[in-house]
């Protein structure tokens, strides 16, 4: 028997900004594989028909490549994966969705399906980003070229480490574990109540409080946003601590520009999927609670401060922190934040957003044969609630800024 060679590795040298700084990274082909985003052929190039075995009562699907007249028989599990091969979902995300949906995962399922689909010419390996494709198409225009270059440059700024587990373990040992005790939960609830009371008091005098900004409202709000940004790092740290608390491994922690323009900190706690639902929920929620605590502290400080700049600053900081809490935990906003993950985990529908958007797209295009059942109702509810919520969020922020600057 021929021995299978070890996965290929590339050794890369990544230069830093300064002239002589660089770091060495070994990238295994497996990393490239799990980050690839398979893209099925366009809808006009395939047909899918469901068949039910009368004997076994099993559902299967026949997938036809209309261009080559090739047919494939897919199991229900394979159909689940096929539907998510939209060029946006990485293999890692596919595997996660698969585990959440079926509660099991055989690693060979995905590569086997990919091989099968490639042989039938039903899969391409195009890059995912729609924005990138539009930019690439219009590269001839100087402004588009500049935007593309800037996004590409920003996206490559990733300050991250994969060797963070020892750091999080130390942090957990040196006091981080206290965050996951009953005392911490009670203290958090007490702070929330006290903060809410202070916030209500401030709300009644909001005009007078925000007047404390005087003539430097815009500068102050920008500073508030910058300070808030630091709290995002704390949010991610707590996610990592929760992961370690449940004896799982934090795979990466760092900073990057999401999609090339959203600066953000991130932590990879995918390993938490190997444990219980309770652990997953605690990990998701605990990060967001950082904003609850910080917001409450700001409101309490503002309530005790004399009228003036600090009071206005603390109030604005409290508002933004609690806004972040809501955005993190509120699942209906088209963004897959902590609350969304808790919701889909609880409902057992890991691909809710994907399915809801696909369904809404069909509805808007007036697609024939659109189902109307409980699942469809969930999808419509998700899209409607998300659209309304985002509109409300934008309106609230505009209102706060207008109020603060007028």
């Amino acid at each position, binding site marked *: 028997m021929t021995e299978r*060679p070890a996965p290929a590795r590339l050794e*890369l040298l990544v230069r830093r900004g300064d002239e002589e700084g660089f770091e060495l990274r070994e990238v295994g082909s497996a990393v490239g594989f799990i980050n690839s985003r398979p893209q099925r052929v366009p809808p006009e190039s395939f047909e899918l028909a469901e068949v039910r075995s009368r004997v076994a009562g099993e559902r299967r699907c026949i997938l036809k490549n209309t261009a080559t007249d090739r047919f494939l028989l897919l199991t229900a599990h394979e159909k689940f994966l096929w539907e998510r091969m939209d060029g946006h979902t990485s293999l890692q995300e596919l595997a996660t969705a698969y585990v959440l949906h079926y509660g099991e995962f055989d690693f060979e399922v995905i590569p086997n399906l990919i091989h099968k689909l*490639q042989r039938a010419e039903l899969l391409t390996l195009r890059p995912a980003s729609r924005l990138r494709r539009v930019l690439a198409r219009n590269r001839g225009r100087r402004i588009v070229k500049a935007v593309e270059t800037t996004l590409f440059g920003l996206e490559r700024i990733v300050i991250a480490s994969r060797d963070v587990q020892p750091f999080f373990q130390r942090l957990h040992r040196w006091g981080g574990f206290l965050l996951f005790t009953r005392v911490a939960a009670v203290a958090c609830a007490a702070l929330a109540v006290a903060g809410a009371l202070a916030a209500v008091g401030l709300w009644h005098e909001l005009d007078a409080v925000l007047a404390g900004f005087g003539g430097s409202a815009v500068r102050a709000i920008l500073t508030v946003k910058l300070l808030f940004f630091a709290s995002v790092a704390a949010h991610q740290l707590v996610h990592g601590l929760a992961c370690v608390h449940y004896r799982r491994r934090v795979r990466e922690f760092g900073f990057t520009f999401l999609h090339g323009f959203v600066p953000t900190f991130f932590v990879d706690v995918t390993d938490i999927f190997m444990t219980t639902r309770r652990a997953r929920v605690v990990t998701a929620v605990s990060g967001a609670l950082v904003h609850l605590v910080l917001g409450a502290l700001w409101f309490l400080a503002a309530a005790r401060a004399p009228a003036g700049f600090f009071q206005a600053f603390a109030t604005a900081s409290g508002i933004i922190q609690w806004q972040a809490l809501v955005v993190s935990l509120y699942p209906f906003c088209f963004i897959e934040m902590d609350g969304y993950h808790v919701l889909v985990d609880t409902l057992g529908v890991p691909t809710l957003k994907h399915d809801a958007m696909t369904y809404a797209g069909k509805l808007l295009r007036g697609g024939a044969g659109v189902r109307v059942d409980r699942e469809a109702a969930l999808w419509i509810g998700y899209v409607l609630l998300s659209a309304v919520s985002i509109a409300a969020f934008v309106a609230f922020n505009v209102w706060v800024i207008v109020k603060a600057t007028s």
Partner: protein
Amino acid sequence: MATSSETLAFLREVRLFAALADPDLLAVAELLRERTLRRRQILFRERDRGDEMFIVRRGTMLVSKEITGKVEQVLVRVEAGDFFGEMSLLDGSPRSASVQADTDATLLVLGRESLQVLTDHAPHAAAVFFYSMVQVFIERLRRSTLQVAEATRWGLEATGLDVETR
């Protein structure tokens, strides 16, 4: 360079000079100069002009080739006794890769003028030197073919492309 017995002993271990007789080795040693680098210090960048080759006396040098932006592929680590930079020495073309110190390092530098001196005054030693260099070139060519195959394997594995059954 003031030639110490230590330097001569080192040069005897270098493949390029291993076949030289002692007087020729001494002549070569006289033509070399020493250069030290700190860890992470860049010796030269890809596309820089250059007409020198380097023999690593101490430490490790990293040779890398640009792929995209700030990312480069590490082609090889050059350890003590091995050499690099000979292509620009011979044909005067810009550097084909970047070289930086992976550790604190000491190099021996052979410039084009020094090589000319060697060719003019010790043609036999120069012939031995070039013959050894060609042998090393052949080995490197074989290794780079393997590297291309390995990079192709990486690409196939990373894309999950099944070419056996296509």
